[in-house]
């Protein structure tokens, strides 16, 4: 994906979110409200032992925190290890299924763009402080769980030109076009033995902005979704969704 082109061109707007300045608050708020209702009814209907369910819910929260922490530190290989067999990740309009594809997403696409660093929301795109921070719903049999967690991260894609300037910048770990995106992680987890693994993770994007830490302003930007699958795009998904 050529970001220099995508930032100036119209690109593929397939399933693009509303990238308006206030849309993050509105959409995230609506999504969270729905999840709160679901979680509240979840415990009462299933009759799962409350203590066990809380323990599982906390374990899922810890799993997600670990996921974000590893991404934040650029521990991409370790992130891959957090997924269950045949897991799926949906990111930027692409579905990555199975370990090989998930490794491609994290160890190639994310790593090349230093994507995943946790940064504060772009100015003007802050989530509603009253919305719930995260929601976890543990299934009655305590073998699966779903969760929704707001995310706010830096995304990047390396410049690919063969100029000396770009090569030098890349060599010193830069030459990456970076932006901010925020939304919700929609996660399905599965218990493997005594620990939890991620079975499905979807990045539900709400907003993208031309923000990097230190800036005082930001504007919404339009970055095209994946338009080619692997191997036509060497770091691309298995399927466009």
């Amino acid at each position, binding site marked *: 994906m*050529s970001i*220099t*082109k995508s930032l*100036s*061109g119209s690109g593929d707007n397939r399933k693009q979110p509303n990238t308006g300045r206030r849309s993050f608050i509105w959409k995230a708020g609506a999504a969270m409200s729905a999840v709160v209702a679901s979680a509240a009814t979840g415990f009462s209907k299933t009759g799962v032992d409350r203590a066990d369910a809380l323990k599982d819910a906390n374990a899922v929260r810890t799993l997600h925190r670990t996921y974000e922490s590893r991404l934040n530190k650029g521990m991409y290989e370790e992130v891959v290890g957090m997924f269950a067999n045949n897991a799926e990740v949906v990111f930027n309009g692409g579905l990555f299924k199975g370990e090989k594809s998930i490794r491609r997403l994290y160890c190639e696409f994310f790593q090349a763009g*230093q994507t995943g660093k946790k940064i504060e929301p772009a100015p003007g795109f802050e989530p509603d402080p009253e919305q719930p921070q995260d929601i976890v719903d543990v299934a009655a049999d305590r073998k699966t769980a779903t969760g929704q967690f707001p995310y706010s991260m830096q995304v990047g894609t390396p*410049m690919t*030109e*063969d*100029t*000396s*300037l*770009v*090569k*030098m*910048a890349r*060599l*010193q*770990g*830069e*030459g*990456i*076009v*970076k932006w901010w995106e925020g939304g919700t992680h929609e996660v399905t987890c599965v218990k493997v033995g005594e620990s939890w693994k991620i079975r499905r993770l979807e990045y539900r994007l709400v907003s993208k902005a*031309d923000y*990097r830490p230190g800036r005082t302003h930001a504007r919404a930007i339009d970055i095209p979704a994946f338009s080619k699958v692997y191997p036509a795009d060497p770091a691309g998904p298995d399927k466009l969704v």
Partner: protein
Amino acid sequence: MAKATYPKEHMHRIKFTKLTREQIDRKLAPAAAGPKCMSEFSDVLGGKKLKIVTDSGPTVNYAFKDRNRLTVSVDGKASVESGYGALALERVVFFSHMVPKTQTGYNVFIDLDSNLVTVIEVWFSGYKDLREVQRQIYYGYVEVAAKEAPEERHHLTNRIEGKGFYWKQDTGIETLEFYPSIVSSSFVELTRLGGELTFCSPSDYIQINDHMFIYDRTECEFSGIMTLYVMDLLDARQVGMRLGFNEKDALEYYMFRGNGEILGQLAIFEPFDDHGEKIPLNMPGMDQKGARPVYRPFGDHPPMTAEELEEAVRKNTSIFPGGDAMAGNRMELSDYLVGKEFTVRYDDGPAWNYRFDDLKKLHWREDGETQWHEEVYEAFEPDKELIFFAHMHSGVKPYECVKIVLDFANGLTSCVHSQVGSKYMANEVSYKFIFGTIEMEGLTPPRYLRHTFTDELVGSALTWNYSDTLTSMHVYSTPHSYSWTIFMENGAMGMQWSSPSRYAMIRDGIYLFSWVEEACNGGQGTIIINTKIMHDCGFGFSGTKDGLRLSTMGAYARNAGVYDVKRFFGPE
């Protein structure tokens, strides 16, 4: 007879021998006797014994027999006798020695007031180009009986980032040296190479105190020689050492004293609470012994043959493809030329007729030719009634393009006429500047006045912000070369390289500047610099493995300062 010494080939053209380990062993043997020096060595260490303790490095015991001989024991191993040399500068004594029958040596800077020490271990055969001197820096102290180890240490710094110097060693060697980076430096060899070109080397900058600093550079990609010295900024003096094999593969291992002059100070762009003690590089492997950030363009851009170039061009020719990384902040395209017809006539050069159909299409022909040729062009208007446009000469071999300045206010034109290919590389652009006049209805050009070469920019430094994530700094360090340095994310200056270049004066504060990355990918950049609006516009032209490319560029400038260097150049 010519007084100045110019090399037959400049450093980037020399094919340095790939010395073998055995050759280095043989050539290095005389170094066991210690370095030579034109000045008298110091005997401040004679008769003394020192135990130097370093953090994360060796403990080294020294016994100095006299001013020329020492014994050294590293980490408790058997003592070895070696020649050495020592020079003192104010409160710092610097001594250097190799370890006999090895390719390793030590360079030790002792602050006699604080007992703090910097040890720079050096060795050969540590990189695939075995002649390249490797180095590892250790910080520590001299152990003093019944005294606690000091907590302070010498350390990396950005406190001399941006400085520029003239140095003259006791050897008679004169250089200009610039520090527009915290990991690299650039230098002009006035004596050895005639002072025409600037070269860049990975470097270290270490602070001893507020006015004394240690500096080193290693001429990676070239001879691999290391130059290392401690300097005192208060009176611009240095004592140092040079180690390595020169272009004749002869060993250079000597110490020197030098006097100099501070030529200026560029702005530095780090946050005010960043003093450069940690280099914010995001590069893998930097914790390995000897690791340093080195730009190695020769490996990245091996010279292409004519056949390889032809094949690459056949696969891909990009004329103004858009989306260029160096055009994020480019000027708007200009429609000034649409509908115009005129002739540009260059002194002792070509004359071309032009007819501009629309914003991107033109027709041109040689004056007197009947056939018009259609080309895609792009044009900028960097100043009032000043147009800069470019286009290919399609179908011409070697591949050719022109970048033309049209100064309608003065009836003048300048052209950078370029083709892909030189006597060195099939993919290296060669070019010439030609100056002339515009012939157009209603415009009477001057008879004698022309745009002309200039040294007005020489010494100055401008940052160029191509996009929010790609910024570089140009230092226009000689009349025929410049260096560029890439900003790191925190505003510190990082990787650096240089190339030959030329400068022409178009108007007051407006310059035509062109360079070819000869020691790199052979590509050319040609820009109009407008210092009134601190913005440039221009064109890149290259033939690489990715094909033939003519593209636009544009960046915002900031003034980064100036070095007082013009007086060092020009025919004597």
